[in-house]
């Protein structure tokens, strides 16, 4: 039998390859580490944060990570979830402060906020400090962090939070702002370099732990702003040492730290470790009745954070995230709409037997959403405050069937309501129905209005350019809307573009009609009504370019009015004004459902604030 010279080499190569494969197979199911640490793997439903620098943060995904590492003056109370919220005092508690701020109104309209910092807050240990030991937090740090928002280096991304609020801050910002060339000044001189030492009248230091902030007027929003992650306190040494890589190398005061830069693999995951020098912060003992019944006070009094390590995994395609939850690889999950029926009985919105038998926990979190289809009020055909054009918009509003949308795309779990103010804020109409609502579907009335506007059965009305983003089921929703409007003869020309193009089209006022949403930054209706303030026109948040002087006057009133029945009355007035003008078709607020495995404890998610990872705990049955 003749030997095959080639075959023998092939054989040995093959054998070698098989051997290698077997070796790798044998090595692969090696457990990662069994250090005895308590940890949980949690999902973040995006590619991850873009930057961990609070001054540059903008999305909720940035928020989710930044607030574990950095801290703000106030935080939301974890277990206090009242049915309605009026003032920030209802739900906030001091975090970096020793006590709630004392607010006093001056005779000249200004408002003075007296703050007292805690004495035991230290920054994380980091090489930017001498000896590598974290320094104690002081008043100067608060002023420094807030002044950063006015630094042109960060492109004023978050300056709007403090705009027109603190005495002298706007002037401070202008001093260092680049002046644009204009007719009278074709070559303006460059601005002086930003100087953090320059004084701001409204920042008055009393001592290293006590200070006062003077507001130009009694801006209600300020109480909420000081809990927002963009106003977190950063260390000057860190900013000076790391410059624009601070986004990868955060140095905060919070319960978790990013131990090494390599712990963050962009697009993959991020590992946060417990801050070994965290001061004594205890699990809350205050809870509203429902939360008490759920046994959430079991860990009251324990030192935070309860976990040694949290691993945040970034998921872009949802199916993959869902599968990982099924495989017990992540401890909790936001239920994407497509999988709702796998875990819940759609009719009753309760867990299926299979899931509840396995001890899976479910929580419904109502979001402060305002999902709408907006109109460009400056559009020659559709926009305008005259009868004819308003009637077209009313007809469109009456033809859209939001209930069908809710049923088909959101499993009926959303709240459909009138107006721009979501539940449970002041100004939310009773049962979602406002007295002058134009919510559909009422095709008869829609056809009447359209005929009255001069376009019987839509004849003569050109196609409407309708911009939406390309998201998961947006395409299908758009097609449903096209179908709904075709019933009264209105033709939509859908332009499904990605999010950045959508913003671009809206900002350039090219979009006649657009599908969009607004999530309230804080639970005050003023945030939603700001969307109709004429000063916020494109590229600001007033995407409709709505402009009514009466509305503006009322808006300027409520931003400084103390919450109460008088303010609520004005808010309702503004709401009805907006509903009558129909600058949008709306609205819907999503209810997000969360599932968690039974081994995750103290599970009470919220999307108003994200720094609740420190309260989570796992029991012995958790994967190690």
């Amino acid at each position: 039998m003749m030997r095959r010279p080639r075959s023998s080499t092939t054989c040995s190569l093959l054998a070698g390859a098989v051997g290698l494969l077997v070796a790798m197979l044998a090595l692969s199911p090696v457990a990662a580490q069994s250090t005895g640490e308590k940890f949980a793997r949690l999902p973040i439903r995006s590619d991850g944060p873009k930057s961990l620098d609070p001054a540059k943060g903008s999305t909720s995904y940035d928020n989710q990570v930044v607030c574990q590492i950095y801290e703000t003056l106030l935080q939301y109370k974890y277990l206090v979830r009242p049915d309605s919220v009026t003032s920030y005092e209802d739900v906030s508690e001091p975090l970096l402060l020793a006590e709630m701020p004392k607010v006093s109104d001056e005779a000249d309209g200004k408002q003075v906020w007296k703050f007292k910092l805690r004495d035991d807050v230290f920054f994380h240990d980091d090489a930017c400090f001498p000896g590598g030991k974290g320094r104690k937090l002081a008043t100067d740090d608060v002023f420094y962090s807030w002044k950063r928002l006015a630094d042109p280096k960060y492109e004023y991304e978050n300056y709007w939070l403090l705009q027109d609020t603190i005495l002298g801050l706007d002037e401070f910002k202008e001093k260092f702002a680049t002046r644009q060339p204009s007719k009278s000044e074709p070559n303006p001189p460059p601005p002086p370099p930003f100087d953090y030492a320059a004084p701001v009248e409204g920042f008055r230091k009393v001592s290293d732990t006590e200070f006062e902030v003077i507001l130009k007027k009694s801006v209600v929003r300020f109480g909420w702003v000081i809990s927002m992650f963009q106003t977190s306190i950063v260390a000057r040494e860190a900013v000076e040492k790391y410059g624009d890589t601070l986004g990868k190398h955060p140095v905060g005061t919070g319960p978790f730290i990013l131990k090494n830069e390599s712990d963050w693999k962009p697009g993959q995951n991020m590992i946060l470790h417990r801050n070994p020098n965290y001061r004594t912060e205890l699990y809350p003992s205050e809870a509203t009745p429902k939360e008490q019944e759920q046994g959430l006070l079991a860990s009251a009094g324990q030192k935070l954070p309860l976990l040694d390590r949290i691993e945040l995994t970034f998921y872009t395609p949802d199916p993959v995230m869902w599968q990982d939850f099924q495989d017990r690889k992540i401890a909790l999950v936001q239920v994407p709409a497509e999988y709702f029926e796998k875990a819940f009985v759609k009719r009753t919105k309760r867990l299926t037997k299979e899931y509840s038998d396995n001890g899976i926990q479910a929580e419904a979190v109502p979001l402060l959403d305002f999902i709408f289809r907006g109109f460009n009020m400056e559009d020659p055909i559709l926009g305008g405050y005259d009868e004819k054009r308003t009637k077209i918009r009313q007809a469109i509003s009456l033809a859209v069937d939001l209930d069908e949308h809710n049923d088909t795309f959101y499993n009926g779990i959303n709240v459909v309501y009138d107006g721009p103010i979501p539940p449970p804020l002041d100004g939310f109409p009773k049962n979602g129905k406002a007295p002058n609502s134009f919510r559909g579907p009422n095709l008869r009335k829609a056809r009447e209005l359209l005929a009255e506007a001069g376009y019987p059965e839509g004849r003569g009305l050109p196609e409407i350019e309708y911009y939406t983003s390309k998201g998961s089921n947006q395409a299908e929703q758009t097609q449903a809307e096209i179908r709904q409007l075709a019933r009264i003869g209105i033709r939509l020309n859908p332009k499904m573009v990605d999010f950045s193009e959508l913003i671009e089209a809206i900002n350039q006022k090219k979009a006649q009609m657009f599908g969009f949403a607004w999530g309230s930054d804080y639970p005050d209706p003023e945030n939603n009504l700001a969307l109709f303030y004429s000063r916020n026109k494109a590229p600001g948040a007033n995407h409709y370019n709505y402009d009514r002087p009466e509305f503006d006057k009322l808006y300027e009133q409520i931003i400084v009015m103390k919450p109460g029945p008088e303010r609520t009355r004005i808010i309702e007035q503004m709401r009805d004004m907006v509903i009558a003008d129909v600058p949008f078709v709306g609205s819907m607020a999503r209810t997000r459902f969360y599932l968690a495995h039974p081994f995750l404890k103290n599970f009470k998610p919220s999307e108003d604030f994200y720094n609740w990872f420190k309260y989570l705990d796992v029991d012995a049955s958790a994967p190690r």
Partner: protein
Amino acid sequence: MWSYVARRLLYSIPVYLGIILIMMGALRLRDPVSAYLGKNATAETALLKKASMGLDRPFLPIGIEDPAEPFGIEPIVEVGRVGFYPPLRTQYVEFLWRILRFDFGTAERPYRSWQFESDNVGAKLADAVWPTLKITIPALVLTATIAILVGLLSAAYRGSVLDKTLMVLVVLGMSISVVVFIVLGQVFGSSWLNGKLGFELFASNGYEPGIQNWVKYCALPVIIGVVVGMGYDARFYRAVMVEETSRDYITTAVAKGAPRHKIIFVHMLKNAMIPVITRIMITIPFLITGSIVMEYQFRIPGMGKLLIDAIVNKDFPIIQTFTAVLAGLFILTNILTDVLYALVDPRVRLA
């Protein structure tokens, strides 16, 4: 031969410049600034962002300044409305200069990506290459091996049942879209299979560095890549081998009484290696781009995912650098292939 190489290189320069020009021009047809504006943007923020992105400069040294969107740079000379701007202060030339210096961001002189504001473009590309290679190289090796084998066997037993069966299987693999394989692969190859086996053999997504994690994260994409890609190669090799079987030397070998397997595996293979090698060489630059779809669905942080994310998020620095590096690689590899081909086959003359 060196004159040929020099000529080709010289010839490639306008090609390369053309690629960069077309690519940068196409990107700038749409305005990317809106994508990076936050929630309550002001006109001020938009202008500052534009300046920090380097988009406030003219694209080419010749331009017409739009009063609504001022360049902020003085033209050297103005002829009517057309201005001539200092080349180095334009976006196109500046980028070319960067390519020349091969400087895509260092600690002292950063060149930041727009999505990842703390990272240099060069660093991000370097990080992304290795995961991609971990998939494409094994896929290439496996595909080539199996395809050659299939091609050989099909050609040797041409017309037989074996040939027909193999070709049917191969065409089957080619006729089903890769996306179907990916979707089904994730469901069946991972979740279902793991359930049956009781432990996790293939992960349905994700990536961890290290050779011990290769099977878990990379094996499944490799398998899918092989199934899909093998078809084209197998048919090509089969055709090559078929051509070989009609040659005189094969007839001679048969006449001399050489056993069949020796003819196949020794003679035919050796002589058919030239087109095989050429074909493999052509696919080498593609090793680096990886498969965008595969990396996206499997969440593997390779070059493909980096690129698709950059395109979706309008991250110009990454797209530009990616294309510049890759195009350069393509051109060089093309020249190399031609040279190698000429060296190996004396019948081929370099034109």
